[in-house]
């Protein structure tokens, strides 16, 4: 009887651990999707204003910049809940634990990204390919800054 109780208790504990892990994994999966989607749009803008300016298509660049801004404005911070420096979404997360030890810095870097992403959407609407290229570079720098501080290289 006692051993059955113990097994039941262990099962509950184990499954609650799995469920708890699931919530983190879902956040990780969602944010990996968000950044992957933003990356696709960033790639399109780079292709059309940096690598092959002759293919510049104003509407497509606007659409891509708006998509990145939408990702930035979606409240990504909610996907960085406590404990999400461990877990697996589409792949094992590469968030450094330092992210949670330096919340001010994390907030600053995230806010930088949001600001430059919204600025890119504004500049894209203007249709000046040169200005878009400059703003694209500023946005890419905010990506790099955060990767450098809080993304594991591997």
């Amino acid at each position, binding site marked *: 009887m006692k051993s059955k109780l113990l097994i039941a208790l262990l099962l509950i504990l184990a499954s609650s651990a799995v469920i708890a892990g699931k919530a983190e994994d879902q956040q990780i999966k969602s944010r990996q999707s968000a950044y992957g989607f933003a990356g696709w749009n960033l790639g399109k803008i780079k292709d059309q204003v940096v690598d092959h300016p002759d293919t510049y298509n104003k509407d497509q660049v606007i659409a891509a910049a708006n998509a990145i801004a939408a990702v930035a404005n979606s409240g990504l911070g909610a996907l960085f809940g406590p404990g999400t420096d461990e877990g697996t979404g589409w792949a094992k997360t590469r968030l450094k634990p330092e992210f949670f030890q330096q919340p001010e810095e994390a907030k600053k870097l995230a806010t930088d990204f949001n600001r430059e992403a919204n600025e890119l959407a504004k500049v894209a609407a203007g249709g000046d390919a040169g200005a878009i290229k400059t703003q694209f570079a*500023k946005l890419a*720098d905010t990506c790099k800054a955060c990767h450098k501080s809080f993304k594991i290289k591997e």
Partner: protein
Amino acid sequence: MTFRIKVWDLPLRIFHWLLVAAVSAAFVTGELGGALQDWHGRIGVAVLGLLVFRLAWGLVGSHHARFSTFFPTPGRVRAYIKGEWQGHGHNPLGALSVLALLGVLATLVSTGLFANDDIAFEGPMVGLISKDLSDQVSYWHSLIFNVLAGLVVLHVAAITFYLKVKKTNLVLPMLTGEKRLPHPVPEHAKGAGLIGFILVAAMSGVVVWIVASGTLLHILQPAPVVPPAPTAAQNW
């Protein structure tokens, strides 16, 4: 009385200092990343060209530039350690350092061709492998850089040691090409000369162009793998 002898030919010296400049620039642009990442990629391809040049120059260049002249065979290393080595170009330990530097740089450049920065930069050969593998290669690329940094520190430390302790300036010959010796030495064999230099430089240029223009990628894998922008047919 001192006698001047020519040790480093002009193309070799130009190669050396261009490599110093390119590697420094690659270091800075790679560390800063972001918008400068494109320049990191371009400089990396330039380093590839320099390495191809050095490889060819090691076969057809002047006496001391040739690998056959300074290749650190066990016998040569042993002689050097015993103090019996008598040469004027790379000594056997220096030669080991040269080969290590060239080898590590070649590994860095080759991994860089397949690397990405997880933002909007991809090396010119990324299309040949999966994103996962490219991520892995990018990690190796950053690890191997540490080996290069260590070798560069060793290189500079050895030069400083020669200058301060052995009272031998190794930097000056790399600028002027000449070494001063207390005794005359027989004239060394001539190297490839101007025509050879032009041919080797042109070959390196072609390699750079093939890689940078994506021609090689098109030959190996004609279909693009980058997720495309919407086309007219699927414009929704």
